[in-house]
């Protein structure tokens, strides 16, 4: 089975990289980009039957830093 974990910065956490991407898009002539937030995508190949709870624990213990990040799990 496969799972996909999307990690994003929590609302309110400053994202200087997102800001730089926004500025670069403006520089390329794309008008109207009002905000950019960047994050991480992690794809996991897992043994069949791995529980969502176990993936959730992986996120909390390592994949995401709960001080600054949120995560979303999709089982594919």
């Amino acid at each position: 089975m496969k799972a996909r974990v999307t990690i994003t910065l929590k609302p309110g956490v400053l994202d200087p990289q997102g800001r730089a991407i926004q500025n670069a898009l403006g520089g390329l002539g794309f008008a109207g980009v009002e905000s950019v937030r960047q994050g991480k995508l992690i794809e996991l190949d897992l043994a069949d039957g791995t529980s969502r709870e176990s993936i959730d624990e992986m996120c909390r213990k390592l994949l995401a830093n709960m001080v600054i990040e949120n995560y979303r799990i999709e089982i594919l």
Partner: protein
Amino acid sequence: MKSAVIVFPGSNCDRDLAVGIERVTGSKPVMVWHGDGELPEGLDLIGLPGGFSYGDYLRSGAMSARSPVMQAVIKAAGEGRAVLGICNGFQVLTESGLLPGALMRNAGLNFVCRDVKLTVANSQTMFSSRYQPGAQIVMPVAHHDGNYFADDATLDRLEGEGRVVFRYAEEVNGSARGIAGIINDAGNVMGLMPHPERLIEPEQGGTDGRGMFEALSAALG
């Protein structure tokens, strides 16, 4: 004083830290590899050095914080042994939960590598007792992820409890409330982004870093 310096794959200030500790305190630290599950007996001080452990993969300090030796460091910290994390060592301390908050990408996105002015915000700790309260000192920084972040309640608590030990006296990396170094609530775990171990001898351009190791030597014998 019996001390150890932890060596992670990608540490690059481990020798500087070991030499700094030895020059100031007169006793040579034991170098401990990150894969070791145990620390030497009877340590007074554990140093987590600067560098780019695990290539800063995932997040700076994230991999090292989960290495076998960190379980032993967390246990030692719980027993009241002094733990000093410098630069990447500070990132490892926040990632392991020994210190609150997180160190994010510098606000200006640039790697900052220069001498910066610091203010001693609390000189009543075992790490800072040799500095005058409010003194302005100079230390080098060299980091990409030194932008300290914590929620407002945590920042208020850190400030209210005197746990901000060093502040930047100039804009460096966007750190919340200018925080350069903090201490845990028990007062035995300290993390800072600047490098005191790089300012031990006049030949290094100054000696403002000696105070930290003199303070530790006075506190720990």
